[in-house]
């Protein structure tokens, strides 16, 4: 009697200690791979961490033997020294900064507009020559800019753009990478959206500026990032000769090349130059990844 009534004790549900996210993974393998990843991540980050800590070292620590990785007495002397040197240079710091900002801003804006316009029709319209043109663009991604450097110089020379900002800015408009990414991303937009706008009486320009562009904001960011990275790091040494038109990176690297006496400042320069692209990337990572998801090269 009692046996029959004895209730089966219900086990309270307990969360498993380690949750297996996927049924076919061994936990040991997971742990091993993540440890491996951690070590590699450290190796990857080490030179950058070292560069930053180098910039914070006072001069005596920079030449210390045996060398240490982290600064014992971090200072910002190197950075203030750098600004003193920049302030004393023949062309002022603000002028270099203006040059870089101008080149980067105009180049990026133009690239965004020109490449998006091209990408829009290549992605959403069928017209003779379109696919062929796109194929040529993908081929253009297969070789580096060095191949075309010399003829480019001759062309810019013919146009009279050598030693002006345009020698950097205008070629940057035509970067194949930006158009490629933009086109691949735009292909993901539903065509019905464009057709609906057309039925409502919008012309191509209206469709482009009012419907398509606001819907591809992640791709904008990606184009902007890649373009800014390229232009920010552009030394422009071969195309621009006048000192007052040189870019910031060029000026900074001149200081870097100043030998032993400028070791501290050189370390600071390294940090100043790398901080900008990395920060821009940190703030726009999710948008870039969203764009890159459609970056595949179909054949």
């Amino acid at each position: 009697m009692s046996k029959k009534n004895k209730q089966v004790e219900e086990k309270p549900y307990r969360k498993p200690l380690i949750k297996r996210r996927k049924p076919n993974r061994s936990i040991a393998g997971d742990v091993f791979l993540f440890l491996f990843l951690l070590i590699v991540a450290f190796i990857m980050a080490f030179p950058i961490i070292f560069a930053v800590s180098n910039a914070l070292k006072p001069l005596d620590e920079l030449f210390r033997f045996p060398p240490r990785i982290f600064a014992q007495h971090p200072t910002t002397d190197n950075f203030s020294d750098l600004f003193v040197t920049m302030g004393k240079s023949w062309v002022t710091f603000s002028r270099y900064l203006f040059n870089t900002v101008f080149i980067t801003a105009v180049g990026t804006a133009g690239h965004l507009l020109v490449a998006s316009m091209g990408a829009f029709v290549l992605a959403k319209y069928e017209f003779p020559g379109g696919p062929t043109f796109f194929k040529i663009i993908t081929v253009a991604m297969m070789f580096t800019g060095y191949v075309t450097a010399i003829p480019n110089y001759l062309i810019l020379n013919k146009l009279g753009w050598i030693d002006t900002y345009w020698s950097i800015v205008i070629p940057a408009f035509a970067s194949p990478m930006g158009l490629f990414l933009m086109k691949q991303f735009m292909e993901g937009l539903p065509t019905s959206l464009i057709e609906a706008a057309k039925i409502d009486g919008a012309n191509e320009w209206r469709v482009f500026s009012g419907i398509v562009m606001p819907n591809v904001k992640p791709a904008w960011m990606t184009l902007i990032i890649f373009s800014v990275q390229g232009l920010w790091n552009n030394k422009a040494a071969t195309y621009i000769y006048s000192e007052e038109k040189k870019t910031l990176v060029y000026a900074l690297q001149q200081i870097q090349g100043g030998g032993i006496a400028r070791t501290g400042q050189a370390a600071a320069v390294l940090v100043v130059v790398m901080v900008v692209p990395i920060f821009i990337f940190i703030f726009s990572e999710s948008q870039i990844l969203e764009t890159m998801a459609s970056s595949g090269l179909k054949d």
Partner: protein
Amino acid sequence: MKEYLQKYVALRKHNAQVAWKKAKIAKNCYLFLAPYAILFTMFFVFPVVASIYYSFTYYNILEPPRFIGLSNYISLILEDDIFLTGVKNTFMIAVITGPLGYIMSFLFAWLINELPRWIRSVAVIVFYAPSIAGNCYVIFSVFFRGDAYGHMNALLINWGIIDAPILWLINPQWMLPICMVVILWMSLGTGFLSFVAGLQGVDKSQFEAGYMDGIKNRWQELWYITLPNMKPMLMFGAVMSITQAFGVCDVTMALCGYPSTDYAARTIVTHLFDYGYSRFEMGYACAIATILFLMMILCNKAIQSLLRRVGT
């Protein structure tokens, strides 16, 4: 035969007419494409053609180009030992860092993909940062400095492995390996981002179907589900890494000097700089550029046809 030809011509004519009509309807498309197309032709297509043309001439900017046939190529391949060193170095670098960097990009993207969301985004930054960190690779010249102040030497001397400092960046024996390490460090670039993004986009239901069908471990999953889904990104990544691998010059120039000892770290691109910007032998430099161009395109085509077979 004649009939066949006639038919062929008629068909072609018809096709052209259709295309012309289509083009007329789509004239706005051409208007949209025009700004980009003009700039692209001016700065990418035309320079390649011009480079091929100049490669058959003697041109030093001051005098007009003079046609000299193939002699630029002949002296490049038969007489210019330094160029051959450059080719050898470039190939060494490309063959080792290209595939390794590519595999690393994919491997880390794949491992990162399993991490929880916020760790993943931090990891992407950590792995991607070296390739966008300006000229941060200069820091390696501090690690590998030739005297005892260099970290590598200091470490090895302290451990008693060596007793005299090694001239890492001056001794031809060590130059290339060190450059390769640095290039590998920087190799997680645009292709890596493409992989990370592509892996997130793989349809989850395919993995679930995979569990049902008895996929036992992560490696099987990788080969049968992930890789076939990633094919377009793999293609894109391959293009990126080949382009990078053949265009090496910044790293070798910054670390080993320009020119480097015994030209041991010379690459094709540094040779191009040498003749183009130091000696102003534009015709010769264009011949180098043309060879580089052909190498890149051929290599890309070969790798693409190879990749097409992945996972099938």
